[in-house]
């Protein structure tokens, strides 16, 4: 690699540099407490997955280009150029990380390794070495919005099919899935499939909520890819829709990273304060149950149920109690995992890893701690409000024969609600 290109790549680090990042790069004491916090390192014992080691790769570029000692005596101060070898190491470190930030929770200095690795991804993208699959998924999402008229009819047709199931379940021939409804209280942002639309539509109907469904999906592969501009543009699609419709709040479906992007990142990325609240759907459902707007049968689920805190909803999103409140309201035998809440182990499915086939074997291996946690509860059902977590736990269920059912919380709520319509079980893919 030419010197000029390496200098350009180091310039990406310069652009991302701020006081906090500089502190993270300067302060690591190499205590290695983070090794016991990372599910990937604990499961594999592979040095390259040790959080401090992952961050060290960016630190080596930092030393070479931002410190005099590293510039003049690189070998002594472990300073390196971002050459092909270093980029290959960065790729494995950055795209394997789920961004769970459990290492940050245990780090004495709270070093945010996931943030440092977001810089690594930016460098890789600048070098043309970003993950191809995640980049394709991000581009497909943007293509859909940039050419919306091409897709609008097929999207709305899909909503109409789901609406028929809402009518059947609620027993209300006037039940609907509203779209583009000016002045609705809530803009609900689902995933592309029916599974996150149908239960929410029934719940909103029963709660007599004023809502409208977004044309766009909440999932944000631009975030996983590591391209902050694309990630903002993908979120802009429904944030602009919320502004146009004048809603009071944007409610994000059971998806971890989508919630964090919308609630935590988007205002900073766009440089604009939202004129509406952003909430996770489980905050809304918990409120509906508490306020008596919807009813769930307290003994609807008698089999033991456990709950997995998705990292982006729990540790990084601050939502711990509402999902537990909901599960406890409808299940008679709730068993929490140990540890839980902010100390919860990552399941291994985040960061877009479920879409990266070459990481399948590693991803499932990294989930062995989660599988052992689940087994220890004796639960037959595991509920979790994140699509990536559920996909990972279904993979663990198959590969490790856990004998569990993996459910979204909304599906449990739907099972527990006394509905006037069809008692036949309607699955979202029917």
């Amino acid at each position, binding site marked *: 690699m030419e010197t000029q290109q390496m200098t350009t790549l180091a310039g990406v680090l310069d652009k991302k540099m701020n006081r906090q990042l500089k502190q993270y790069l300067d302060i690591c004491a190499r205590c290695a407490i983070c090794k016991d916090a990372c599910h990937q390192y604990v499961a594999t014992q592979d040095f390259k997955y040790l959080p401090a080691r992952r961050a060290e790769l960016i630190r080596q570029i930092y030393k070479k280009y931002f410190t005099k000692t590293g510039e003049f005596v690189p070998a002594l101060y472990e300073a390196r150029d971002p050459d092909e070898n270093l980029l290959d190491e960065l790729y494995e470190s950055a795209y394997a990380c789920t961004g769970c930030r459990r290492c940050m929770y245990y780090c004495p200095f709270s070093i945010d390794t996931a943030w440092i690795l977001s810089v690594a991804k930016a460098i890789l993208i600048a070098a043309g070495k970003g993950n191809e699959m995640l980049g394709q998924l991000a*581009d497909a999402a943007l293509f859909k919005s940039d050419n919306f008229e091409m897709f609008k009819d*097929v999207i709305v047709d899909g909503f109409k099919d789901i609406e028929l199931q809402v009518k059947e379940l609620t027993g209300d021939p006037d039940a609907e899935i509203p779209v583009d409804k000016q002045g609705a209280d809530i803009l609900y942002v689902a995933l*592309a*499939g029916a599974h996150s639309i149908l239960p929410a539509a029934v719940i909103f109907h029963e709660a007599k909520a004023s809502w409208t469904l977004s044309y766009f999906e909440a999932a944000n*592969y631009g975030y996983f890819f590591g391209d902050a501009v694309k990630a903002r543009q993908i979120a802009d699609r429904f944030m602009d829709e919320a502004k146009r419709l004048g809603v009071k709040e944007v409610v994000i479906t059971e998806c971890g990273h989508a919630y964090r992007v919308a609630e935590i990142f988007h205002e900073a990325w766009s440089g604009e304060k939202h004129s509406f609240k952003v909430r996770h759907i489980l905050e809304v459902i918990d409120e509906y149950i508490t306020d008596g707007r919807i009813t769930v049968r307290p003994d609807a689920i008698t089999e033991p149920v456990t709950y997995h805190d998705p990292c982006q909803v729990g540790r990084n999103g601050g939502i711990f109690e509402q999902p537990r409140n909901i599960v406890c309201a409808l299940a008679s035998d709730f068993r929490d995992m140990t540890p839980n809440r902010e100390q919860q182990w990552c399941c291994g499915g985040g960061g877009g890893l479920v879409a990266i086939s070459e990481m399948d074997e590693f991803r499932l291996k990294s989930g062995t701690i989660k599988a052992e946690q689940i087994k220890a509860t004796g639960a037959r059902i595991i509920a979790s409000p994140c699509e990536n977590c559920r996909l990972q736990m279904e993979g663990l269920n198959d590969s490790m024969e856990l004998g569990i059912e993996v459910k979204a919380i909304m599906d449990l709520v739907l099972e527990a609600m006394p509905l006037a319509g069809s008692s036949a079980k309607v699955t979202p893919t029917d």
Partner: protein
Amino acid sequence: MSEEMKADLDLDLKGLLCPMPMVKVSQNIASVPVGGTIRAVATDPGSMADIPAWAKSTGNEVISAEKVDGEFVFMVKRLK
């Protein structure tokens, strides 16, 4: 049209939730030759927008996308 063509690869994506049908088509496109086709059958209605959007943005082609008995059947041609 899709019923008449023999695909180079058949993908059963029934039961997969979006965006996984799109992900599976993308993961498998390299396994057919340029000019070759994948016949994919999905059940998630979101795939009706997802798979054509993926094809357009990656320079491939959806020859047909049909709803048949509640399933979504795609013929995807690899163009590069």
